[in-house]
């Protein structure tokens, strides 16, 4: 569904990484680790078409992202649910409206009535539906972001440090939600520096662990 072939990315002359190849197939579960500044977030942005590779090819659902029109990219993003590190909410809209935003922009608001109550219940935010995002705790924000990422029933879920600002118990709960989605056939890619989370995941799901280090993507060893 999403395939990176010998991809490189440079910021103003300095190469962040190169020769990156990755294939997110249906039902796959990947963790992406690496030191801060290695380019994990940039790699994720390449995967959902927010950035263009400076070399190599990124294929989104069979199409080269560089050759895609702006409208085609927008349509591809509807098939990719993204949980951003900073959640990226519209702070003037209630949580429920933020969660159904992808349905709204896709003109599928009729599905919101049927799906939203179940989804809010699944992430445990039924009572917070009418609150504004700044009124939520860190964990609640992450769960709301996950709800928004999955409301369109996307083929791929990408999460950038989803447990970065929350306690261990909440991290476990989020991980469980991601594993459930993976069991439904979704491809999942999670960028994290939380090795405990990865160890916990390995008891629940067969995940491939990738490490971005020294400008290359490596498969992590059994030490994890």
């Amino acid at each position: 569904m999403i395939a990176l072939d010998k991809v490189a990315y440079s910021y103003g002359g300095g190469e962040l990484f190169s020769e990156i190849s990755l294939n997110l197939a249906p039902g796959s579960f990947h963790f992406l680790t690496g030191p801060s500044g290695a380019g994990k977030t940039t790699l994720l942005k390449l995967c959902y078409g927010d950035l263009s590779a400076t070399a190599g090819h990124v294929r989104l659902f069979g199409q080269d992202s560089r050759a895609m029109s702006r409208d085609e990219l927008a349509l591809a993003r509807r098939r990719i649910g993204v949980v951003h590190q900073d959640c990226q909410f519209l702070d003037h809209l209630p949580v429920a409206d933020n969660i159904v935003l992808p349905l709204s922009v896709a003109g599928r608001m009729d599905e919101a009535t049927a799906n939203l109550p179940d989804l809010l219940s699944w992430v445990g935010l039924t009572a917070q539906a009418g609150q504004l995002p700044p009124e939520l705790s860190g964990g609640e924000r992450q769960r709301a972001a996950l709800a928004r990422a999955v409301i369109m029933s996307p083929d791929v879920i990408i999460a950038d440090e989803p447990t970065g600002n929350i306690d261990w118990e909440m991290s476990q709960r989020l991980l469980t939600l991601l594993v459930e989605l993976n069991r439904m056939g979704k491809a999942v890619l999670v960028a994290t520096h939380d090795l405990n989370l990865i160890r916990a995941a390995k008891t629940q799901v067969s995940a491939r662990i990738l490490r971005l280090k020294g400008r290359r993507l490596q498969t992590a060893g059994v030490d994890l």
Partner: protein
Amino acid sequence: MVPPTGFTVRLTLFTSGAMAFLAVFALALSLATGRLADRWASELAQTSTLRIMAPAEQMDGQTQAAIRLLETTPGVASARALTDAEQQALLEPWFGPDLPVEDLPIPRLIEIVEDSTGYDPAGLRARLQAEVPGAVLDDHTRWREPLVQAAGRLRALGMVAMLLIAASTAAMITLAAQAALAANAQVIRVMRLVGAQDSYIASAFVRRFTLRALSGAFFGVVAGVVAVSLLPSTDVAGGFLTGLGFQGMGWIWPFFIPPLAAVVAFVATRSAALRTLRKQA
């Protein structure tokens, strides 16, 4: 989707209101000068004047001869000499009501009304020169055409003023829309991340600016119509003007301005939004 706050709300409302107010006056000017041009053209085109300048003892004779000649001229429907009272009324604005017309050597005026075919001015002048040497034919062409032309140009100026108002409105709304787009960069980014296409994002701004322009223009038009209705009436201002206002069904015309302002806002905002979104990508 877009937060409903910001100075662009007030800017758009004020601009569209003020421009609609001015557009009402431009429209009133255009319609009034149009009526003036039509009136001058129709009233003066069918009439002309024969002026008899002769010694007092020959005046009546030449007047009768001229009228007989005119009655046999093809294209002349009627011809009659103005009475002393009518001539006095014509001179009254300049010399006052007590002018002794009969004691003054002023020419006798004959009013000629043409029929639908009209007469041949050159032929009539030649016959008058032979039979009534003191007669001078004035078919009003010399001063009718410049007046009609001037009124026509005033009407055109009114139309140009309305076009300029529309262009200014579009420019101001474009600036306001660009400011709103810049102020809502984060909102646009989030919408893009969840799969919004440019047309969807643009429509969120277009809808808002179109409604603001519509409501602002409506209030501007109401204020403009009230102001025009309070202008002095034709009778008070004098017979020369037809009145800088609307007449009859003409009062409906200003209420086409708000929908037009909305159309201008729609086009300006959509164009600005799509252009800005392309640049932001």
